[in-house]
C-alpha cells in the first residue's frame, strides 16, 4: 500500500519516549471490549422480538444489559481506542517524547479496571440509574483520577514540544483534558455520593448536560483531532486551512456545551433553557461545517484514495457519518422535529450513527493503520481487513435501516393517536431486521478483533528499537 513507503528523507528521527507502549496498552483494551459489548447489543436486539430470551435472571434483563452495553462500548471500547490514538498522535505532532509514559500505562489499566468493575456493578443492579452516568460513585472517582493522570501526561508532553506550532489536533487534545473532567464531575454530581444525583428536574438537566457532552466534549473533539491528523497523514496532503480548524475548536467549546437541553424539549424544564439548547444545536453547525469543509477540501482530488486504502476508507466513512449525524442532530433538535421523532427507535438509530458509525468505525480504521506501526509487526491479513470493511458496511446499512424504519413507523402511529401497545406489533419486522443487521455488525467486530489480536501475537517484523522511534512526519 502506498503509505508504506512513507519515509521522508529530510526529517530527523523522532523520539517518542515509549508512547507506542502506552498506545498499545490502550488498544489492547479497545479491541477486547469491542466484540464483547457489541454482543451485549445483539442480545438486546433479540429481546425486542423474543422477550423471554435470557429473561430468567436479573443480571441479563433488558434494563441491565442496556446500560452495560452502552457503558462498555462508550468507556471501554471507544474511549480506550480514542485515548490510545491520542497517545499515538500527540508525541508525533508535538515532536516530543511522551511525558511520563508509565503514568499513561497505569491510567490505561486503572481506567479499564474501573470500566469492568462499573459494568459488573451495573449488571448486579448497583447503578446510579442516570442514562450514560450509570456507573457507581466509586467508579466515577477512579475515572476522575484517570482523567487527571491522562491530562498530566498529555499537557506535559505538549509543553515540552520541540515543534513550535500547535497543530489543530493538539488544540483539541489540550481542550479535552480540561473540559471532560469538568463535565464528568458536574454531570455525575460527584459531590453528592453515593446517589450521584440531585432531585427533580434539576437532576434531569444535569444528566443531559452530561449525557450530551460525553459526546460533545469527549468523543467529538477526540474524533476531530483524530480526523485532523489521520486524514492529512494518510492522504499525504496538507490540512486545507488552519483558520477553519480554529473556528471549529471554539464553536465546539461554546455551542456543544449548551445542547444538552434538547433531550428535554418536551419536559417541563424552563423554556429559556430549551431555547438555548435549540440555538446551540443550530449554531453547533459552525463547528461541524467548518470542520467538514476543512477535511473535504483537504480530500479534494484524492477521494479515490478511499477505494484503494482500506484504513482510510474506514476513517473517511466515519468522517462522513459524523457530518451526517451532526446535520441530523441539528434538525432533530428543532422543537417540531423533536416532537415527532422523540421516544421512538429513531434516536437510538441517531446515537448508533454517531457512536458506532462515526467514531467506532473510525477507530477500526485507525487501529488497522496504527497497530502495525506501534507494534512493529505486519498486519495479520489485509484480505481480512477488506472483508471486515464489507461486513461492516452491510451490517451498518441493515442495522440503521431497521431502527430508522421502526422509529418512523412508531412515530407515525403515535401521531394518529395509536397507543404504544397498539403500534408495537407493526414494529416486529423492523426489530428482526435490526437484529440481523446488528448480528452482522457483531461479526465485523469479531473479524476486526481477531485480525488485531493475531497481529499483536505475531513475531515482530523489525527490531524493537525502530518501533520506538519513527521518521517524523509533519502533516502540515
Amino acid at each position, binding site marked *: 500500500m502506498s503509505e508504506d513507503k512513507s519515509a521522508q528523507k529530510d526529517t530527523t528521527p523522532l523520539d517518542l519516549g515509549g508512547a507506542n507502549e502506552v498506545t498499545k496498552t490502550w488498544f489492547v483494551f479497545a479491541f477486547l471490549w469491542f466484540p464483547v459489548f457489541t454482543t451485549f447489543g445483539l442480545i438486546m436486539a433479540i429481546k425486542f422480538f423474543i422477550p423471554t430470551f435470557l429473561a430468567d435472571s436479573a443480571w441479563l434483563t*433488558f434494563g441491565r444489559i442496556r*446500560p452495560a452495553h452502552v457503558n462498555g462500548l462508550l468507556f471501554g471500547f471507544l474511549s480506550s481506542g480514542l485515548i490510545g490514538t491520542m497517545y499515538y498522535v500527540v508525541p508525533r505532532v508535538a515532536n516530543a517524547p511522551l511525558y511520563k509514559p508509565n503514568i499513561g500505562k497505569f491510567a490505561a489499566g486503572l481506567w479499564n479496571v474501573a470500566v469492568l468493575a462499573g459494568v459488573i456493578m451495573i449488571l448486579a443492579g448497583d*447503578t446510579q*440509574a442516570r442514562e450514560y452516568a450509570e456507573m457507581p460513585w466509586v467508579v466515577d472517582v477512579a475515572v476522575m483520577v484517570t482523567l487527571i493522570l491522562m491530562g498530566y501526561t498529555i499537557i506535559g508532553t505538549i509543553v515540552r514540544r520541540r515543534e513550535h506550532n500547535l497543530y489543530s489536533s493538539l488544540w483539541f487534545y*489540550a481542550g479535552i483534558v480540561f473540559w471532560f473532567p469538568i463535565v464528568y464531575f458536574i454531570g455525575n454530581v460527584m459531590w453528592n455520593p453515593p446517589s450521584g444525583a440531585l*432531585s427533580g428536574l434539576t437532576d434531569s438537566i444535569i444528566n443531559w448536560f452530561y449525557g450530551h457532552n460525553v459526546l460533545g*466534549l469527549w468523543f467529538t473533539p477526540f474524533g476531530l483531532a483524530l480526523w485532523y491528523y489521520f486524514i492529512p497523514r494518510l492522504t499525504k496532503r496538507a490540512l486545507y486551512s488552519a483558520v477553519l480548524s480554529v473556528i471549529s475548536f*471554539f464553536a465546539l467549546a461554546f455551542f456543544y456545551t449548551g445542547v444538552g437541553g434538547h433531550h428535554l424539549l418536551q419536559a417541563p424544564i424552563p423554556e429559556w433553557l430549551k431555547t438555548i439548547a435549540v440555538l446551540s444545536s443550530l449554531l453547533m453547525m459552525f463547528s461541524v461545517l467548518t470542520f467538514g469543509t476543512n477535511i473535504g*477540501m483537504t480530500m479534494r482530488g484524492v477521494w479515490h484514495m478511499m477505494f484503494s486504502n482500506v484504513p482510510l476508507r474506514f476513517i473517511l466513512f466515519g468522517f462522513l457519518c459524523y457530518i451526517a449525524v451532526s446535520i441530523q442532530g441539528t434538525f432533530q433538535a428543532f422543537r417540531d422535529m423533536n416532537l415527532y421523532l422523540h421516544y421512538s427507535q429513531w434516536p437510538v438509530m441517531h446515537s448508533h450513527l454517531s457512536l458506532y458509525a462515526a467514531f467506532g468505525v473510525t477507530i477500526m480504521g485507525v487501529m488497522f493503520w496504527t497497530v502495525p506501526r506501534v507494534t512493529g509487526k505486519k498486519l495479520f491479513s489485509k484480505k481480512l481487513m477488506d472483508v471486515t470493511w464489507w461486513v461492516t458496511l452491510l451490517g451498518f446499512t441493515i442495522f440503521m435501516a431497521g431502527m430508522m424504519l421502526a422509529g418512523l413507523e412508531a412515530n407515525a402511529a403515535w401521531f394518529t393517536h395509536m397507543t404504544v401497545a397498539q403500534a408495537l406489533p407493526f414494529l416486529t419486522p423492523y426489530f428482526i431486521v435490526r437484529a440481523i443487521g446488528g448480528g452482522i455488525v457483531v461479526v465485523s467486530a469479531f473479524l476486526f478483533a481477531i485480525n488485531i489480536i493475531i497481529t499483536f501475537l505475531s513475531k515482530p517484523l523489525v527490531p524493537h528499537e525502530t518501533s520506538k522511534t519513527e521518521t517524523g512526519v509533519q502533516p502540515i
Partner: protein
Amino acid sequence: MSDLEKKLEEELEKVEKGIEKEARTIRTRVHQHNLFPIVAAGVSVMLLMTSMVVVAPYMFLLDVPPSSIAHQYTPLEARGRDLYLSLGCFYCHSQQVRPYDWGFGNASAEGDYVFDSPHALGTERTGPDLAQIGGMRPTIWHILHDKDPRSVSPGSIMPNFGFLSDDDINALVAYIQNQGQENLDVGNSTTGGASYHPSVPDPYTNVTNQFTPLMQVVLAGYDPVNDVYNGSSLAGTQWTEIFDIGKANFTQRCLACHGCSGNSQGPYARHVVTQPANLHERLSSFPGDSYDIWRVSEGVPGTAMPAWHLSLNDTEIQRIIIYIMSFVFGSARTFPGSMSDAEGDAFGNRTNATPQISGTQSDFDQGGQIFRLYCAQCHGETGQGDGPASIATDGGYISPQPANFTESGRDFAENGNYGRYLWKAREGVETTNMPPWKWALSDDEIYKVIFYVQGFAPAENYNAVWGPQYTDPFARNLKKTVTTGSMETDLVILTTWLAGLLMWNLRYRQILNLARIAKLKTLVQNYPQRRQFAWTLTC
C-alpha cells in the same frame, strides 16, 4: 502551447508564489499561539456556557413547590422505585406526559418530580408512559403483568420479572400504582387489592346479576377443550337467547369503542381522550356484579362512557354484562357449530344468496380495510384464526377459536353456499364471540369483506366456486395468477441488487483505476493543486 497560454502560465505562477508566501505568514501567525491562551480561552467559553445551562437552571429550580400528584414515597414505594431504577425500567418507560400526548394523563409539570432522585424521565417509549399510570389498572393485573407480561397483555415485549420475589413485586407494584395519582391505598395485593376502585354507591351496592346463576349452570356443563356442551338442554336454550341478545346489544352500543374482542381497540377508541376500558383486563380481576352494573348504568365520569340506564333497562344491561363476561376466557358454546352451519345453509337455499358486488380491485381493498379494522383482532391478519385476541395466540382469550378461513374456506366452498357466509357475517354465530355484523356494517360492506375473506380460501376451491360468482375479471382471476406477488418482485430486486454489489466488488478496482487515471489527467492538465492556497485566503 500558444503564446497566450505561456503568458498565462507565467502570470499564474507569479500569483501563486505570492499567495503561497502570504499563506505561510498566515499559518505561522495562527500557530504562534502558546498553549496557555488556547486552553484558557477554550475552557472559559465552555464554562460560560456551562454556567448558562447548568448553574442558571439549578438556581432557577431551587424552590419548585410539589404539585398535587407529587408525594413522598413510603418505604415500600421507595423500595419499589429502587427496583424500578436498578432493573432499568426507565429505559423503555418514559415518565413525562407531553402536552400533545394522548391518553397518558395531564401534561407533566415541574412540581411532579420534586421527590424524585435520581429523575426517571426516560428517553424512550418502547412501553407506555408511566408518569400517571397509578390506578389505571387493577393491582392484581400489575402483579400478573410483571411476572409474565404476555399472560395479560398479548403482544407485549416486556421481559418477564418472574425472578423477583413476591415482596419485590409488591414493592414495585406499590410504586407503580401510586405514580401520578393522589396517594392511593393499593390495599392487600395478595387478595387482588382492588381497593383503589371507588366503592359502589348506594342503590347499586347489593345489586346482583339475575343471569349469573344460569351462567354458572351452563359453564358447568361445557367442555371448552372439545367444544362440547353436555349440560341441561333447557339451560342451553335459555343461555343461547340471553347471550345472543346481549351480544347484539353490545354490537350496537359498545363495540365502537371497546372493540369486538373487548380489547379497547374499537374504531372510535382513538378519538376519545381517555382510553376505553380493556374489558378482558378489567374482568380478569372482576370487582363484582354490583360494580359492573353500576359502571354501565351510570357511566364513568370524565370519560366517554355514557350512563346507559338512560337508554337501556336493567335486564338489557345485565344481559350485556353476561355477554362481556365471555371476554375473560371465552364463551360456553351451547348452540353447536353444526346447527349454525345448517341455519346458514338453509338461509342460502331459501334466498338463493349471491354476492351483490361485481368484485373489483377496490371492493377487495375496501374489504381488506374493514377486515383489518374489525376482523383481524380475532381471525388474524392472514385469516388463520390466530389474531392477538384469539385463544390460539399467547395471551389470547377468545374461545372457541375463531374460524380459520384458509381451512373453512374449503368447507364453505365444498358446500358452495354463499348464504352461509352471508348468514354468519350478518347474524353472527350463536353463543360464540362472532357478533351480528348487521348492527355495525352495511350490507355493501359485508359483501366486500366476504369477498376479501374468500381470498383466503385455497386457490382450487376459490376458482371452482367463488370466482365464477363474481362478474369482474379481478375477482375471477384473483387466485389464477401468482406472478404479480410482491414477494417474488422483492426477491428479484434483492437478487439483482446483490448480484450488482458482487459484480461491483469484483470489478471496482479496475473501474476505479480508470476513474483515477482520468481524474489525475484532469488534475495535471487543468487544475494546479497549489491554487488551493487562494481558497485558504478567502476563508
